[in-house]
């Protein structure tokens, strides 16, 4: 039995095995996931997860370590393809297009769905080259001037421009941790994606840098859809509009952030939120 009987269900999802509490649907969704399962070899890492991600919203994925929230996030731009032995089934649609459809090229997908990682990972190149890398490989700028424009715009949006504008030729690895992470965000923005996935983007940063990134997410929401995995419930509460709670590879509960944190409906969610485990 995959769905414990004691779960009260209120979702109007027309499937037999509903396991998630709360409304997984949104109107005019950007990403629609239906019955997603992920296997690492024998391990069943994600079990039957269905979830929508809306436009211009920040959705936070929370849950204890190893619950599958990062794995789920990496499904959304097919980053799991790089992991040997990983198998994904179910349906994930971006703007109505199945991203796991046969013959679909991951390159444009990833240009549309950017990703920021847990540890800042600037390339061992200059700050300028880091940001310019995406536009360069995709041929987004027709000349040097345009490229410089894109780099400046991206760095501005990432809130880094004022700090680095005089050091564009310096190596990106020389920046502080928080700056590096904002550089990575700028690098992602430079490709002009529609969705940005963030995998615990602040876990390696100090509180001040974290505050800056959180502010940045709020600003970015205007233009992008953001899905963020976080360990910090305060962060989820601060930045997101909706929150999804994962437990042992299952999506337990999803809802408005305020509701999840003040009035969780599922026992597991409540236990987690109140700090009984996690």
């Amino acid at each position: 039995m995959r769905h414990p009987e004691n779960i009260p269900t209120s979702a109007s999802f027309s499937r037999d095995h509903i396991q998630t509490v709360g409304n997984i649907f949104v109107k005019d969704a950007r990403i629609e996931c239906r019955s997603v399962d992920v296997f690492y070899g024998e391990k069943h890492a994600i079990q039957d997860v269905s979830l929508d991600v809306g436009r211009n919203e920040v959705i936070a994925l929370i849950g204890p370590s190893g619950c599958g929230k990062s794995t789920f996030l990496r499904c959304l731009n097919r980053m799991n393809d790089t992991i040997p032995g990983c198998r994904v089934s179910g349906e994930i649609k971006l703007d109505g297009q199945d991203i796991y459809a046969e013959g679909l090229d991951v390159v444009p997908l990833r240009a549309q769905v950017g990703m920021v990682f847990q540890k800042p990972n600037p390339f061992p190149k200059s700050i300028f080259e880091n940001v310019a890398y995406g536009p360069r490989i995709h041929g987004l700028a027709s000349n040097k001037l345009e490229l410089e424009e894109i780099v400046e715009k991206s760095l501005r949006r990432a809130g880094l421009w004022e700090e680095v504008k005089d050091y564009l030729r310096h190596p990106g690895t020389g920046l502080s941790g928080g700056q590096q992470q904002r550089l990575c965000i700028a690098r992602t923005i430079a490709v002009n994606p529609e969705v940005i996935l963030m995998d615990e983007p602040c876990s390696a940063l100090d509180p001040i840098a974290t505050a800056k990134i959180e502010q940045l997410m709020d600003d970015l929401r205007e233009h992008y859809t953001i899905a963020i995995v976080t360990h910090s419930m305060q962060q989820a509460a601060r930045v997101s509009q909706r929150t999804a709670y994962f437990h042992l590879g299952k999506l337990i509960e999803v809802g408005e952030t305020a509701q999840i944190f003040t009035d969780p409906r599922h026992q597991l969610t409540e236990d987690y939120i109140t700090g009984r485990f996690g």
Partner: protein
Amino acid sequence: MSNRTEENKSSNQGIRTHEIVKAGLHRRRAAEIRFKAYGFICIVAGLGFLMALFGNIIAHAWSAFEQTYVALDVTFDESVLDPEGKHDAANLASADYPALTKRSLAAMFPEVKDRLEKRSLNALLSSGAAYELRRVLAKDPALLGKTERIWLPVDDDVDMLVKGQIDRDIGEGDRRMKDYQIAWIDKLIASGRVEKRFNKQFFTSGDSREPEMAGIWGALMGSLFTLIVTGALSLPIGIASAIYLEEFAPRNRWTDIIEVNINNLAAVPSIVFGLLGLAVFINFFGLPRSSPLVGGLVLTLMTLPVIIIAARSALKSVPPSIREAALGIGASQMQTVFHHVLPLAMPGMLTGAIIGMARALGESAPLLMIGMVAFIVDVPGSLTDPSTVLPVQIYLWADSSERGFVERTSAAILVLLAFLITMNGLAVYLRKHYERRW
């Protein structure tokens, strides 16, 4: 208001971005496939070289394991072998055996009268044929005075002809065989007197100027003695050195220097070790030239860095918890290392040592420097006898002009490779079965 327009612009840009990315996709996928193909081609090229090398050597070596023999009816004539009728062994050993083969050849080809032709008729037989006759007679002295059909080795040129490695169709002047010689051989073949047999000589005798009499036994023994010296010295010294550096040495400038020094020595050209051996062991200490002793010493210095580096990494892979456990129950540091750490690191150390020894076995350049390149017929019997080693023997034969040495060189290479593959196989086995991962 301004926000709205920017948002529109941004979403327009999003669509534009998408289009641009899609437009470039075809080109980028093609580049991807090309790049991957280059990689694959390079691997195939590398493996192709390996195949070509092995194929080439095996193809050349194959025929060396057989030697052509010819059957002669030899009369052990007392008037030739023992004109004074003494019947003692020493006298028989130094008798004129070539005369016997000359006679039986003359009996078989009575039409050959000309002196020069007679000489080339006799040249069909190997000069080793006389030794063979002596051996036969020494084994069975009762043969004296009797006539017996005996299989004798032929000259290398004849051997090559029978094996089809001398082209009969090219002009007489361009090959080493005269037309009439070929005719004699054909006649012998037609009468069923020519046969190819397993080349025992190749595995049992020392070097020779005559390809059909040359063997690798001397070189093998030389290699064995050299490796014994190398192993007996480099193993204990290498392991001791690794133990000191890894377990006892304080981390300071001195040990840093030693470490850099060892890493550097591992990359010094082997010929430089040969120069060292020549200047120090031979000229300064006066050790005998060409001897396995000096060869072993030189190879010891050469393989030590390899063994030390391997032994250190084996020691490093033993987790500190083992040391702490032993020290915790009151063992001295020395006891900890010798009772607990060393046994666990041993498989890794031995693996490294075998690989180092395999390298030493295949090494030739430094041994040229210390005179192990001399032409040595005798099989060495001790560490100080002049000798050569297998790779140097290969070098010497490769330099010889006789056609017959080509196949023997290749065969010697096969033997050397067989030893190396066995040693490396042993190392892989050790690593697979005894090395523990923590």
